[in-house]
């Protein structure tokens, strides 16, 4: 397989996958080192620079998306399926889950100082969080964590992108 053949295959894989494809997943399919996959993705990106699409890193994988400057036109196409903005309560709850996962609802409520059941339910409904089993504590409360969709929704590569400042103050 030549480099240009590999480039076509990788482009096709990223395009066809419905979820962000990691370099390792691609590497396993095309039988190359994942570092080679990464540099090939870079050359696809260079080729895309003049076009309508870009490959973004999200949740540790690659995903083909339209360029931000096209948003006003694409929005005229219809309604986005997942993209309605979250309430402040839901965003705060989600921030706590992202850092503290696996975390119970009672732990979230202790940090926020208010009941958070409706925020948790709406996040579950939007599949931004999921249940991660139950805590070995009285009442065996449900533990929550963020999902793949969380990364897509905010366009984050990984949890490492979240701000760290201030953590030492309370941890």
């Amino acid at each position, binding site marked *: 397989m030549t480099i240009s053949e590999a480039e076509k295959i990788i482009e096709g894989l990223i395009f066809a996958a419905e979820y962000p494809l990691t370099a390792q997943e691609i590497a396993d399919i095309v039988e190359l080192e994942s570092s080679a996959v990464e540099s090939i993705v870079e050359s696809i990106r260079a080729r895309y620079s003049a076009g309508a699409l870009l490959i973004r890193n999200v949740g540790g994988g690659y995903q083909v998306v339209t360029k931000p400057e096209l948003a006003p036109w694409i929005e005229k196409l219809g309604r*986005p*399926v997942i993209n309605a903005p979250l309430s402040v309560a839901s965003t705060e709850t989600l921030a706590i889950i992202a850092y503290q996962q696996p975390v119970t609802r009672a732990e979230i409520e202790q940090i926020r100082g208010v009941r958070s059941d409706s925020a948790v339910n709406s996040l579950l409904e939007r599949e931004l969080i999921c249940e991660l089993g139950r805590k070995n504590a009285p009442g065996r409360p449900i533990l929550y964590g963020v999902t793949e969709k969380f990364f897509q929704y905010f366009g984050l590569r990984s949890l490492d992108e979240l701000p760290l400042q201030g953590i030492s103050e309370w941890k």
Partner: protein
Amino acid sequence: MGYLIQLDAYEGPFDLLLDLIAQNEIDIWDIPIASITEQYLEYLYSLQEQDLAITGEFLVMAATLIRIKSRLLLPPEPVEEDEFEDEVDPRLELVEQLSRYKFFKEVASFLQEHYSDASQVFTRGQMAAPLDMTPIYTDPVGDLTVTDLKELYYALITEVEKEEPVHSIPSSISLPERMARVRVQMVGQPRITFRDLLQDSSPAEIVVTFLAVLELVRLGEIAVVQYQSCGPIDIEPFALEVEVQ
């Protein structure tokens, strides 16, 4: 000393306290409890004045603030000599909770900024077919006001409340007869309403009158117009001008 209290919607007592701290430009690690407590309670009172419900969490925090305030006022308990326990600042636990909440609040706004960027790019299949937003009802009420509704209601009620006659002779009425009566009532009138035809009618008579009107429309003798849904039905002699042309 007056306080300017913004009536923003707070996510909870921590949110309110952080806002008071920001407004007073004070250090979170050295909160003047007395003044903050006063402002906090002031806010709760202002909610009460507006008849807004104060949730339990806000009241618990009020109690916590008052407890801390009173502990600060009391002289420190005498410490036995060999114990070298540090005097713990009664504010410490609250301040730790506040700074922890503050951190997550900041993360939440970080996430919201990321969202506004991320919401500008689209993957395939992310756009659903546009919803058909054609309204099912085309303004059934129209320009009706509450007063109109009241008048209509009274008009109906007065009809319903009419006393039943002690004796009655059932009268039957045929369609041709009723059509004739409509024609008579139309004479010399530019327009009458359907209701005018229904004076003292029984339900059966209303039905026959309605059928008579329909029949007259079919024969091209009259035209009916209803300008708004559920509004009065106007009956006019069929517009002759059209035939003249």
